[in-house]
C-alpha cells in the first residue's frame, strides 16, 4: 500500500522508502548519508509531543524528522 502523505502514518507501521521527492538536494543527500535510501525499511514509532518531529526506528537507531523533512520521502506500508 502506498502512503499518500505522512498523516497516514500509524505508530507501529513498518514502512519501506519507495522514493525521494522535492528540491532540497542537501537534505536528500543528508538523508542518504544517514542511511535513508530507496528500499530501506523503517518502523514509525510515534510523533513527538506538540505535533513535533516524527520518530522512526531505522535498523538499530532512532531518527527524528520534521514534517517538512519527512515530506521528502515516499513510503509504502509493508
Amino acid at each position, binding site marked *: 500500500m502506498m502512503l499518500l502523505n505522512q498523516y497516514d502514518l500509524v505508530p507501529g507501521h513498518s514502512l519501506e522508502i519507495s522514493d525521494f521527492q522535492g528540491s532540497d538536494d542537501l*537534505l536528500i543527500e543528508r538523508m542518504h548519508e544517514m542511511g535513508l535510501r530507496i528500499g530501506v525499511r523503517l518502523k514509525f514509532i510515534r510523533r*513527538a*509531543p*506538540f*505535533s*513535533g*518531529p516524527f520518530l522512526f526506528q531505522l535498523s538499530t537507531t532512532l531518527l527524528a524528522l520534521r514534517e517538512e523533512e519527512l515530506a521528502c520521502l515516499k513510503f509504502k506500508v509493508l
Partner: protein
Amino acid sequence: MSEVQSPLVEKKQTYEAPLVALVGAPNSGKTTLYNWLTGAHAKAVNYPGSTVDYMKGELAHHWKKNKINVLDTPGTYSLQAKSDDELVTQKILSSFDHELNPNYVVTVLDGTQLARHLILAEQIKLTGLPMLLAITMADLLKSQSIELDLEPLKKHFNCPVILIDGRLGGGVQELIEKFPQNSSIKNKSVIKNWSTEELDQKATWAEALAHEVFKKSDEKIPAIWNQTMKWDRLFLHPVGGTVSFVVIMTTLFSSIYYLAAPLMDQVDVLFAFISSWLLTLGPQNLFLDFLANGIVTSFGAVLIFVPQIFILFLGMGFLESSGYLSRAATLIDKPFSKLGLSGRSFVPFLSGYACAVPALMAVRNMSSERERWIARFIIPLLSCSARLPVYGILLALLFSESAAWIPGLVLAGLYIGSMLVSAFAAGILNKLIKQDKKSFFLMELPLFRRPRLNVILIQAWMKTKSFVTRAGPVIFVLTVILWIGTTFPNYQASDSEKIQTSYLGIMGQKIEPVFEPMGLDWRAGVGLIAAFAAREVFVSTLAVVYNVADENQEAGLLNAMKAAQFKDGQHIFTVASITGLIFFFMIALQCLSTVGIMIKESNSVKLAIIQLVLFNVVAYLIAVGLVQGLRAIGIS
C-alpha cells in the same frame, strides 16, 4: 564524483609533535576516546574565523609517549559538510595550515552502527591521510556476546582496526602504539564528494562488509537498544515526556540559580574583602583606589560568573552524554520552529533566565549560523537574575501598601513578559533573516548511557576557562573605564560628592533632559548609566546618589526614593515613572559583560553595538511612551 582538494597537494609537516585527529559521527564515542587519550590536558579552540569549538590537547603523560597533539573534531556524518561545525571537520582534513592538518586520523566508528558509519570511514580513507579505525561501544557488543572479525576491515582499509571499550579504556594503549612518532609525513588531502547514487552504492557495500565483520551475529544488536527503547516510552511520550522535560529542566536551571548563588556570593565577598583590605593599606590615594575599586572589582566582575558557567556546562554535559539532550530537543522543536529556531536551541534560552553570559556561550553548540544570530540577538531580552534586585526595589516601591502576593504576581508577569518580548523579537528576526538552506533538524537519537563524570567535569572546566580567557579581558577593560567615569576628576571627595561631580555625574546632569520624559531626575539617570556595569549596580548607585546612610540600605533607599523630589517639589518615583523604569529594565541591554561576551562570541563589534543601541533606544521609547501615556490618563 567531485573533489575538494587542499591548495597544497604535497606538503611536508615541519611541526615537532605529530597531530592526530579524531573524526567520527555525532555520538560515536569520539569525545570519550579523546578524554582517555588526553586526560585533563586539553583546551577548547576555534578554527580561524569560526566560533565552532573543538578540543585540542596533548596525549596524557601517563601514556609515557613522546609529545603528540590530539584534536577532537566536531561530529560529522560526512565530509560533504552541511553545517558550520561539519565544515570545520572538513577544513581540518583538507587544511593547508600545518598547525591544523593532521598527520594521522583516528576514524571513530560506533560498533552498534557500523554499517552506517563505514561510509564516513571510506570517505576518510580516500583523503589519502594515514588512518586507523577505532570501533567503540565494544563493552555493549560484548554484553550481547557479539564477536567481531576485524580482518575484513583491515583488508579493505589497509590500516589497523582497534576495538575500544569506552567504559574501561580497553584498546586505548594499543591505539596509541599505532600513532606516528614524528610529524614529517608527506600527505595529500583530497575529499571525494559523492552523488546520492554513489552514496547508495557505498551503503550497500557497507552493509555487506558490516555483516561479514559481525560474523552474521548482527541480529543481536537490537537487544542493546532494549533499555533505551523502554526509557523512550517515557521521555518521548506526549504526557510523560512533557512532564519529565519540565522536571529535568527545572532541576537543571534551579541548580544553576541555587547552587551557583552561594558560590557567587563567596566570590563577591572575597573580592569585596580584598578591595576593602587594599584600602586599609594606607591613606586614601588614587593608586589604592584604582587597585581596590578598579582592578579588583574588575576581576570580581569576571570571576563572579564562573560558578554559574561551570554548573550550567556540567548540567548540559550530563544531559548530552546521557543521551537525554537529543530527546529534549525533539520534544521542544515544534514550538521553537515557529520562531525560526530548532529544538536544539532551547538550552541557551533557558539558561538566559539565569544569566545572559553563559547563555551566549551555549549558543556555540547550535549548528545553524542563522539560529545562532537569532539566539544571540534575543537572549539579552530574557529576564536574567541581575534584573531581580532592580525589580525587587521598584516593585517594593510601587506596592509598598499592598499584600505581598501582588508584587509576587507582577514579578511572575515580568518573567512571562520577557519571554513574550523575546519571542516577538525572534519572530521579527525570523522574517528578516534569510532562510538557511543548510539548517536541518533531522537527527539520530543516541543510546541512553551512564555519563562518565570525569569527562563532563573536564569539559565543563574547559568551557569555564574559555569564558575567563575570552570574555574576561573585555569585561575587565569595560569595568575599568566605568571606574574612571565614576571616579574622576574629583577623586578625593566623599563617595556621594565624588560620583555627583564625576564625569558620569556631570554627564548625567547635562543629559537630564533625556531622563525627564521618563519622569526621572539626573540622579536616577546616573543610576541608569552606572547600571551598564551590571544591572544590580543601579540599586547601589541610587543609594550613593540619594545619600543613603542607613544600616538597612534597602529600607533606607526605599524611604529616600519615596522622598526624592524634583526642584519644583514633585515626587520623582511615582506610579508612572516606576512603571516606565520597570519596562526600561525589561528591554534595555545594560550589562557590559553581555556586550563583552557578545563581541567575542559573534566575532562582530558591529552586531554588539547595534544590539546595544537598538535595545536601549527601544527601551527608552517604550518607557517614555508609558510614562507620558499614564500621565495623560491621570496616573502620575
